[in-house]
C-alpha cells in the first residue's frame, strides 16, 4: 500500500476547502499558526497530519482545512515556511485546482530578521524586506543588515 493511500485512511477527505500536502516534516504547526488556523473562530475543521511517510520526501506533514480559501499573501507564507509544499483546492471531495506556490523574489513586511542589531528591529515603523538568494534550497537575505537566512531559519513577523 502506498504512503498516499495510508494517509487517506488516517485523514478523512474533505468536501470543500484546502489541502496543503508535502509540507517538510515538522513545519505543519508553523504553517497552521501562520495561516491563523489555530484560532477558535476558524470556520471549518482543521486536520493536521504530522510525520507521515512519504516516498518522495521520507517524512512529510499535511494539513486539511474545510471551507478555506487562500489569499496571495497566505500562499506566500506557505511558500516561505514550507517551500515545496503542494496546495490543492477541493470542491465536492475532488481536486478542483492545483495552486502553484513559489517563494517571491522580494518579500516585504512578512519575515522577521533575527539580528537584534538590524535597523528593522531598532527603528520604529520600519518594514522588513528580504530578497531571494536561492530557490532550492530556499535562502533569503535581509536587505538591510544583509544576513542570509536558510529555509529552516525563516520566521514570520
Amino acid at each position, binding site marked *: 500500500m502506498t504512503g498516499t493511500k495510508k494517509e487517506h485512511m488516517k485523514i478523512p477527505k474533505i468536501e470543500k476547502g484546502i489541502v496543503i500536502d508535502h509540507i517538510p516534516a515538522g513545519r505543519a504547526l508553523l504553517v497552521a499558526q501562520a495561516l491563523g488556523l489555530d484560532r477558535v473562530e476558524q470556520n471549518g475543521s482543521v486536520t493536521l497530519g504530522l510525520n507521515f511517510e512519504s516516498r518522495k520526501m521520507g517524512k512529510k506533514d499535511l494539513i486539511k482545512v474545510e471551507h478555506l480559501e487562500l489569499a496571495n499573501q497566505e500562499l506566500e507564507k506557505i511558500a516561505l515556511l514550507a517551500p515545496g509544499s503542494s496546495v490543492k483546492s477541493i470542491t465536492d471531495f475532488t481536486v478542483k485546482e492545483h495552486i502553484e506556490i513559489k517563494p517571491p523574489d522580494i518579500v516585504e513586511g512578512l519575515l522577521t530578521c533575527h*539580528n537584534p*542589531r*538590524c*535597523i*528593522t528591529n*531598532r*527603528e*520604529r*515603523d*520600519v518594514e522588513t524586506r528580504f530578497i531571494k538568494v536561492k530557490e532550492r534550497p530556499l*535562502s533569503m537575505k*535581509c*536587505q*538591510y*543588515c*544583509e*544576513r*542570509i537566512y536558510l529555509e529552516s531559519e525563516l520566521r514570520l513577523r
Partner: protein
Amino acid sequence: MGKMKTGRSVTMEALSFKGKDIISINDMNLDEIRNILSVADRLEQKSREELMAYAPSKILANLFYEPSTRTRLSFEAAMTFLGGRVIGFSSAEGSSVQKGESLWDTICTVSQYSDVIVLRHPDDGAARLASEASHVPVINAGDGSNQHPTQTLLDLYSIQKIHSTIEGTSIGIVGDLKYGRTVHSLTSALSKFKSISMHFVSPQSLRIPMHIERELKESSTVYSEHERIEEIIEKVDILYMTRIQQERFPEPAEYEKVKEIYHLDLALLEKAKRHMKVLHPLPRVTEISRDVDGTEYAYYFRQAGNGVIVRQALLGLVMGVLH
C-alpha cells in the same frame, strides 16, 4: 593600475554613479569597482588647484552617530580637497537623536541641506534605510557590524597599487573576523575577483561568521581558517591585520581573553615573502609592533592616505562632478 578594459560592452551610462548611493560592496559589480579605482587613480595625478575646481558650492553632510576619527576626517579632507564644504555631527550625543528623532526623519531633514550624505551608524542596515529616506546620495561610512564599503574600496585600491593587480592575490586576514565589518566587506569584494585565496586567522571565538562563509562558498572562493599567523605568513602577498574591537563584545570577559592574542613583530615577518605588505584599517592597538613601521612591509599609513583619494573619487562620482 586597473584601467578600464577596452572592447567590452560596458557603456559609460551603465557605469554612471551620479545620484547613486554607496551602501554595500555587494551592490557593486566588478566593472563598477574597477571604474571607481580608475577614477581614484586619475585623481591622484591631479594638482590641488585642479581638484579644488570639482565641487565648489557643494555641501557634504557628515553624520556620525558613533565616533570615528579616521573615516570622518578623511571624508572631510576629501570634500575640502574637492573645493566643497562640510556640515554634520561627530556623535549622537547633542544631536536630535537624543530627543528621540528617528534616523528616517533626521535623514529626510538633512537631505534638504546637502548634496551628499555620509553616514556612520551603530545599527546594521542603517545606511540602506537612510538611502530610502534621502533624495541626495548616501554613502555608508560603516553600519554596525555590517558593511564599510569605502574602507573596502580603499583596501582594494591599496592592494592594486602594491601589486598592480588584485587578481591572483593571496591574502591573510587576521584578528576579529566575527564582528569586524571591514573584514566582511573586504571578503565580499575580493570574492568578486578571480583566483583570490583567503587565509583567515582568528581565535575560535572570533571566527568568520557562517553567513560570510556561505557567500564565499557560493562564489567558489578558496579559503582556509587558522589560529596562528605563523601558519600563513609564508604564503601571503598581503597580510591584513585588524584590531580586536572591545566595543563590539557583548561580554567584557570574552574581550579580555583575546584582546592581545596577535602581535605582529619583526621575528614573525622573517618568513614573509619579500614583496609582502601589511595592511590595517587602523586604529591599531598592540597587534602590530612599532618596529614594523619602518620596514618595507608596512603599508598601513599609506593605505590611510589612499582613503582620502578613494573618498574624493566616490564623492565626485555620486555628486556627478566626476565621471
